[in-house]
């Protein structure tokens, strides 16, 4: 029986450079973990979208994690048999929870054809903030994993909660 193995593990402040290091870390693990090219590309995409999503909102929680370093962002990629799991967590302002929840719940409720329509509508007419987001990253995650995006919010303080994102993908 194949056992659980960690492939990439990180806890700390995320920067653009850190994402580059973590991508290289995953590239170096491809051969030892015998990950075939198509699956590897999907894992890289999921990893980048997950980490960039955390990075986009880092300025919201930087001051908070300096006072509470144990609540710094975390990223974990692991394999259990044929299944790969990506887990990320980061503090999120409680005021932003509803917006994130609505985006993910909408994506999770759609059939593949409906997702295509939403993607097309978002990419052509979607409202993008200066952070660039309009839920495209979450759509990409759902398209690749072909499964609902799992998430949790856990209260950390009066102003912040922990946002945990969990993605599963199986080796075909």
């Amino acid at each position, binding site marked *: 029986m194949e056992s659980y193995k960690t492939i990439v593990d990180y806890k700390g402040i995320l920067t653009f450079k850190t994402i580059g290091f973590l991508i290289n870390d995953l590239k170096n693990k491809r051969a030892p973990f015998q990950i075939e*090219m198509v699956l590897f*590309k999907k894992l890289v995409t999921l990893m*980048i979208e997950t980490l*960039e999503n955390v990075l986009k909102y880092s300025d919201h929680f930087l001051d908070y994690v300096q006072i509470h370093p144990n609540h710094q962002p975390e990223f974990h990629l692991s394999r259990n048999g044929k299944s790969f799991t990506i887990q990320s967590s980061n503090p999120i302002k409680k005021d932003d929870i509803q917006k994130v929840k609505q985006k993910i719940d909408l994506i999770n409720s759609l059939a593949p054809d409906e997702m295509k329509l939403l993607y097309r509508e978002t990419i052509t007419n979607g409202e993008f903030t200066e952070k660039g987001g309009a839920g495209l990253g979450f759509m990409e995650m759902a398209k690749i994993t072909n499964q609902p995006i799992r998430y949790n919010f856990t209260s950390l303080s009066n102003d912040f909660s922990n946002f945990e994102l969990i993605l599963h993908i199986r080796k075909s």
Partner: protein
Amino acid sequence: MDNLIIQGTDVTPSVNFDLNSGIFEISGVSRPEDVIVFYDQPLDWLREFEDNLFDNPSLKVELPELVIMFKMSYYNSSSSKYLIQILSHLKKIENSGIGVAVKWYYEEGDEKMREDGEDLADAVEFDFEYIEYED
């Protein structure tokens, strides 16, 4: 108007818009640190090109058919909306009477990259030619 050449990096694509050959190529990885800043230059160039075409209709006669080649190994979701904007400019150019062919390259077996191309093609209502290549 000069050709546009931007050297690629580990995180930004190569851009080569060559007016003499009519071949516009974007290739490599696209996950820029600042996606807005990176795509500003190609989008400005296309706007200027479009303005030139509309101001000087005789240019249309001199231009060869345009071929836009995408050879992306990876692009993030933030980049996709800029690829759409590039394609939208090319659509306007095509609508003005200039032939535009879009060639979408993807690595052998990389069905995701092909599907990503199909999503973009659907969004801008462009017919892409899909070309699989060996790495």
